[in-house]
């Protein structure tokens, strides 16, 4: 006969209610862990999405996610010429907020390295990868775009050909993947009027100096496309990403570039490390601390619940001692109730969490490892929580059952 189960059955309503309460608490603990994982995972989504072996950035900067890095576009060719590098391109990633169907649409624009990367590696849930090097986009579900939907950005219209799930930037905005060219076109899109005004201004400046007045060709050039003006810098890029030969070590190419005075190269792993240590580090630690606090609070609350459950049972416990029940029986009664409560609460937390977390605006990533770890923690909490009750029960004298 299991005394713990009998007692629970006797005051079932109360036990169920308190257990659900503890379960909700555990759900929050679980959720905090999930938010933490989600944050870390989201932070790495972009770097994983582009799948680069090497990140080349402006010398002594920490790369495109941590701070501003400006590099000449021509660096792409220099990197591509390094032995072992198979493919180098500009890293294009930026966030835009436009109007779509009358509503603000905020998204991260990520450039894929067409034609080597058409987005096959992305977490597609519908549609297909890119099939042409212009005017197609793979959008994340969270952006609310449908397959086949047309999206006007700048001067061009793009068709949604694929949908991904949980491809979001570290700020939580959904990411849309374009070919690198399209992504840049979106980034550097300028209204025609502003280009006209800029050329007008250049022409006026050229006309203001002797050289411009005496050389009509200069005037001509100055009012043409900016790329044709030798004195103007080309558009800068924030980083160049490269892949190395399969089997080749990124380290070798990295060492080759370490001699270049204007850039710093990081391996993919180093870049992820920088991301986690940098931009998301505080958020990560913050959530971690909250999680620890919540775990402690859960333990305290459970201890108090088990303690009050025990207080209500002091008379029967004295009685059990009176009829000669060994301490083992009494400890078992309290400990088992604590474990049963912990186990059911864990189940409740899990069941609630798996239904609620997907409705959250940002990803709550509950991994099996974390679930297992939490189960261990709950087990520990249950045992620790019962100690206070057990201590109280041990001090009850059998003759308290009489009179």
């Amino acid at each position, binding site marked *: *006969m299991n*005394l713990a189960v*009998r*007692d629970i*059955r*006797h*005051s079932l309503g109360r036990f169920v209610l308190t257990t659900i309460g503890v379960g909700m608490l555990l759900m929050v603990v679980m959720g905090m862990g999930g938010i933490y994982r989600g944050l870390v995972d989201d932070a790495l989504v972009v770097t994983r999405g582009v799948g680069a072996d090497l990140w080349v950035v402006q010398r002594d900067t920490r790369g495109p996610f941590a701070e501003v890095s400006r590099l000449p576009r021509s660096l792409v060719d220099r990197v591509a010429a390094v032995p072992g590098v198979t493919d180098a391109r500009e890293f294009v990633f930026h966030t835009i907020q436009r109007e779509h169907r009358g509503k603000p649409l905020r998204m991260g624009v990520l450039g894929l390295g067409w034609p080597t990367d058409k987005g096959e590696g992305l977490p597609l849930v519908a549609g297909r990868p890119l099939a042409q090097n212009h005017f197609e986009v793979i959008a994340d579900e969270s952006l609310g775009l449908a397959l086949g939907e047309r999206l006007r950005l700048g001067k061009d219209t793009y068709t949604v050909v694929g949908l991904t799930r949980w491809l979001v930037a570290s700020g939580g905005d959904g990411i849309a993947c374009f070919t690198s060219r399209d992504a840049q076109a979106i980034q550097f899109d300028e209204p025609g009027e502003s280009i006209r005004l800029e050329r007008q201004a250049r022409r006026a400046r050229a006309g203001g100096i002797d050289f411009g007045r005496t050389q009509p060709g200069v005037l001509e050039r100055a009012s043409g496309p900016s790329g044709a003006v030798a004195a103007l810098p080309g558009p800068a890029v924030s980083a160049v990403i490269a892949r190395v030969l399969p089997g080749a070590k990124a380290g070798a190419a990295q060492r080759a570039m370490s001699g270049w005075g204007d850039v710093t190269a990081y391996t993919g792993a180093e870049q992820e490390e920088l991301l986690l240590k940098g931009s998301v580090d505080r958020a990560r630690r913050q959530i971690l601390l909250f999680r620890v606090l919540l775990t402690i609070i859960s333990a305290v609350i459970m201890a108090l619940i088990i303690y009050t459950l025990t207080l209500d049972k002091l*008379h*029967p416990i004295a*009685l*059990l*001692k*009176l*009829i*000669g*029940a*060994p*301490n083992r*029986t009494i400890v078992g009664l309290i400990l088992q109730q604590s474990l049963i409560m912990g186990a059911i609460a864990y189940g409740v937390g899990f069941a609630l969490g798996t239904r609620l977390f997907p409705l959250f605006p940002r990803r709550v990533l509950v991994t099996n490892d974390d679930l297992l770890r939490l189960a261990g923690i709950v087990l520990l909490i249950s045992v620790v929580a019962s100690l206070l009750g057990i201590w109280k029960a041990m001090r009850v004298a*059998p*003759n308290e*059952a*009489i*009179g």
Partner: protein
Amino acid sequence: MGEHLALEVSGLTKVYGRGHTEVVAMRDASMRVRRGETVALLGPSGAGKSTFLLCVGLINPPTRGTVAIGGWPMQDGPRSLGDLRRFRREHIGLVFQKSNLIPFLNAVENVQVVGELVGRPPSVARRRAMELLHALGVGPRALNMPTQLSGGEQQRVTVARALANQPSLILADEPTAALDSKRGRQVMALFRDVAHEHGTGVIVVTHDHRALDVFDTVYEMEDGVLRLATRAVIDAAVGQVRAR
């Protein structure tokens, strides 16, 4: 073992409190109970009867004196509380004035649990519990929770619990106070039958003088002093009842 007494108590003294709150509840009490002997213990309230039972029942330690149950000395050597509790569950059946049932177990489970505590398989313990409940006339209420039972029914379940492990000593503190006289007498007679059949020593604290003829020996206690009741006391008590 056959010659051993069910209970041998000598020089038992219990002092509660200390200094100016000191109460000598029991002074130098001695008693011998043979196997199969039934003993009634009379005395006014506050005389120390419960104190005597608690010391003999290994629940409260006496200040002085020795207790031997079934020939086993209880104060010999350092016996831990756990040992005493174990001895209690195996050899002593307790019944108190107010029924003391575990509220979250039903009637039969309340009896069954003591059988399981001494290591009987649940099915065996349950069968024995059912037999006892039937013998005590509460078989039909076996599955009721204590709160669903009347005072008398609760008390009979408590008696069944005390008998469940076939103890060598039964200690009952005013067990029939909550029962009508017919039921009260039945319980007393049951104690006697158990005593005679199994050689159990039985001590019953009672105010119920109507059932005194059931007992082999009558003790009385007053101001902490225990002694054999004189014929006159018993006759007076019984006569009192007859006169009513």
